[in-house]
């Protein structure tokens, strides 16, 4: 492989020049091989390549160009000549090229108008068995592809096969992927469980079906429990697990799982976790205090969440003194975001909070405290004459509410938010 050595050496010399450090200058002059980590040759452009290498390089460039511009027919034409790269006997880049070929092939087949499921399947199967390092990844992707096309059973079967794959050290080093595969298989079990439950409720249930259902539940829950213990974002998995647990009446376990997911410090902060917890608690008639606590956590993460409206209702209705103030804070933070600008409910709630606050003596101070940092930009966000025109045309009630709040929120400023009185 003399030419490859030249290529590699040349590239390392070029890299040395870019670095410009002393040691690299020395190695340049003497022509030694560099000790710097070498870039994989796939990304290197070398004009002096000839023959096979040049052909595959040019082919890859054409394919890439065609794919970038969504010219799928042209990409397929060039791809028909590219698989010869797999027969290249350089062991170092073999895995790299396998991955490149697999990903390009599947991408083209997904988009090409005349591609069939069969050709996709063939591609996945061939590339899966072409090597050891890629087997699990390709299995997972194949399963996703089958799911996209609605073939649940095949997907489940693929994953079961993948789960039982063993290859010495490889399966040990890739155990994360195995975990993922197990998790997805459990998810598929859940989907099948859902289907069965739906069909079962139509017919008369007899024992074997019930047993079957429970089997799926058991199979699914084994791995779901496992995966939910490790930190990560597992939204679909947790939803499915909780649903199954609720069906079988195990509320305690469900609550544990949800609490862990939402409150465990090791897990990345996930607003959805709090949302799931809140929805579960609501379903099970928990006292308001607990709900407020959950929503408080959510408020920290996502001030503009739609549940903040419920949060502010809770705060309004609670009897604690500081809560109205908190409610004001929550609503103002919601309105900081442009998506709530035209929402009548939010403004009405704000109006209610303000009215509630006015019962107190120092309501002006409280309001000003909250609005102090907002005086610069709130008028432009909400109270320009353009908004006035728009609101009075589209949503007169909103206009009414907003104009009543105008003087309170931004006292002492003349704003263009007046409009024709209807």
């Amino acid at each position, binding site marked *: 492989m003399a030419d490859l050595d030249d290529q590699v050496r040349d590239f390392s010399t070029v890299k040395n020049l870019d670095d410009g450090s002393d040691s690299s200058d020395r190695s340049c002059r003497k022509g030694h091989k560099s000790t710097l980590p070498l870039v994989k040759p796939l990304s290197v452009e070398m004009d002096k390549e000839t023959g096979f290498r040049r052909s595959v390089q040019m082919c890859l460039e054409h394919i890439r160009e065609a794919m970038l511009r969504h010219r799928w027919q042209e990409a397929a034409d060039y791809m028909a000549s590219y698989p010869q790269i*797999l027969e290249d006997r350089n062991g170092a880049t073999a895995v790299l090229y396998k991955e490149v070929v697999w990903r390009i092939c599947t991408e083209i087949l997904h988009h090409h108008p005349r591609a069939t499921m069969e050709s996709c399947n063939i591609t996945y199967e061939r590339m899966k068995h072409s090597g050891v390092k890629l087997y699990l990844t390709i299995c997972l992707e194949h399963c996703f592809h089958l799911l996209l096309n609605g073939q649940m059973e095949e997907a489940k079967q693929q994953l079961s096969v993948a789960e039982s794959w063993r290859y010495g050290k490889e399966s040990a080093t890739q155990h994360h992927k195995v975990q993922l595969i197990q998790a997805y298989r459990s998810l598929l079990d859940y989907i099948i469980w859902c289907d069965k439950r739906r069909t079962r409720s139509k017919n008369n249930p007899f024992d074997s079906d019930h047993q079957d259902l429970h089997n799926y539940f058991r199979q699914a829950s084994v791995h779901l429990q496992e995966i939910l213990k490790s930190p990560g974002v597992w939204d679909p998995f947790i939803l499915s697990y909780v649903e199954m647990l609720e069906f079988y009446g195990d509320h305690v376990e469900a609550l544990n799982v949800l609490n862990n997911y939402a409150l465990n410090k090791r897990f990345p902060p996930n607003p959805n976790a709090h949302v799931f917890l809140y929805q579960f608690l609501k379903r099970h008639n928990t006292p308001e205090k607990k709900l407020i606590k959950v929503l408080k956590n959510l408020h920290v993460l996502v001030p503009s969440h739609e549940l903040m409206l419920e949060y502010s209702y809770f705060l309004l209705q609670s009897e604690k003194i500081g809560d109205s103030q908190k409610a004001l804070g929550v609503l103002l933070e919601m309105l900081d975001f442009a998506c709530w600008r035209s929402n009548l409910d939010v403004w009405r709630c704000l109006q209610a909070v303000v009215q509630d606050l006015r019962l107190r003596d120092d309501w002006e101070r409280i309001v000003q405290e909250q609005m102090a940092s907002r005086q610069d930009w709130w008028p432009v966000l909400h109270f320009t004459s353009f908004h006035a025109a728009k609101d009075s045309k589209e949503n007169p009630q909103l206009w009414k509410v907003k104009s009543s709040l105008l003087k309170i929120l931004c006292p002492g400023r003349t704003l263009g938010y007046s409009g024709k009185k209807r």
Partner: protein
Amino acid sequence: MDEDATAGYREPCAQCAAVNWGISEEGRFYCMSCHNVIERTIEVVDLSVAGSSNRLKSIAKGPRTSKEERGYTWLVCEGFQFILKNQADALLRLGVDPNFKEVLCQMWRLYLQKSQQAYTSDRLRGSRFRPLNIDSDSDCATESSIVSERESNPSSFSEIDSDCSGSADERTPRRRNRLMRMRKTLALVHLALVWSREALTLSDLLRLVRDGHVPYLNAYEQFPEEMKLSGNKSSVFNTKSIPSHRLVHKVAQSLVLVLELPAFPPIGPENLLHPAMLSMRYLADANLPDGLHRWVCSLMERPQKSKRDPSPALPRHDVQAAAHIIVTMKLIFGLDDHTEWELSNKVTPHDPSENLFSFRRWFRLMGTALGRAEQKRDRDMARKQWKPKKPIILRRRLAGRAMKTKRISEQLQMCFEKLSSSPAGVQDVGLSSFRFCWGDEDGSNGPSLHHMKLDGVLSLEDDVLTPLNSSYWHPGLRRCKLMHCQGSAPGHYPEFEPSLPRSFVWVLRLFSFLLDVEPCYLFQEVLEVERRLVGSRLPGQRNKRRLRNRTGKEEEQQEERS
């Protein structure tokens, strides 16, 4: 009981002890008498992917070594001889004179003798290819065949002495043996072509190889069944690329030294291989007017004072012809980004009959044709298939994996061929000496400018036709003396190129496309011609014509006589 489905499962049921199994919807076995479901499931075979399995199928029934036993032991040079023979036959089919094959044969035998692989009394033990089970009686057969050839064939060369034992060459025998490689076959063929004065230039030969008309790429696939390739030495038959013009010429040059050939037979101006005739061909291909040919010939007739050429030098007629054409164009059109356009401006308004050659019109015509042809060349390059149908297996234990990879690659290819409009690889290209086709027929690259007159750029002075352009520019002509520049491939062209006039660079690009060489290679030849034209004396020595750098213009005597 579904016999097919249960595939003959005959265990009695645990509950009712009957053997009556069926398959439920989920693929589980259940007893049809008592509906007891057991844990056994049927293997679901996905028929869509079982079509072509990845497992190695057995190739031959019967005893495993029966086919392999029929092979015989053969030497590396026999393999190359076979390839050379195939190449010669292909060229004969393309129309080359049969005498060429004789010449090639003689050269090959001379090479074998000089490298002590055959025709000599102390033969070196070359690499042998044995069949997989060692069968020694076929050994004698090959040796006797070589010996008989030596005795029966009188050679026409007086230098060959069949009893000559190895020449006094300082190269070690091991190195000598490694020297026979695939590219040497091309070099030998080229030498034989030049010796027999065939009009097939090296660039034509390489183009034929590239298009597959002459076997080179994976040529070992045409070996007969009995010659089997195995082991480490077989990598010598691997072809990963087609060698460049420069490389083959270099190898051929060294072969001339090894073979100790006398001077090549001279080529008269009527012969098609002569640069004068070649230049006519290139002028036609480049759509230049025929009138230029006279100027090119008169340029070529100038005395060739080559002081440094080693003898006997292998002539490069194709590159020389192209370089002379470029220099002629420089003389007549200037090619300095001004003169040629001014001359074209003068021509166009005064030309009611459209019979005068205009550089601008030629440039535009040629530009589009060249661009399209280069794109097609790049497309073909990208789609060319290099890997052989029967890969060379260096180590037997890797054979299984190599075949599996090959199958995967073939199946993927089939998948995409179904989607694509054309099959993989390059389509069969039509055979032609010309890269472009000019004329009015369908499929031509454009209208022909061959008949146009050069009157727009020439003038009659003192009854002598002279070019209107009276100045000539050239880059520094002194040879570079640095060690790593001597004979290196790009030379200094990449540094010069940004400062050269664009029309010159474009003309260089055009002719390097026609010949399929690198522009830097052609540029070096142009420099050689200019050195001969202008005189390569170093500045500082006394010289009639003062040499200036390329930024200056040099006045030249009007030497072009018609």
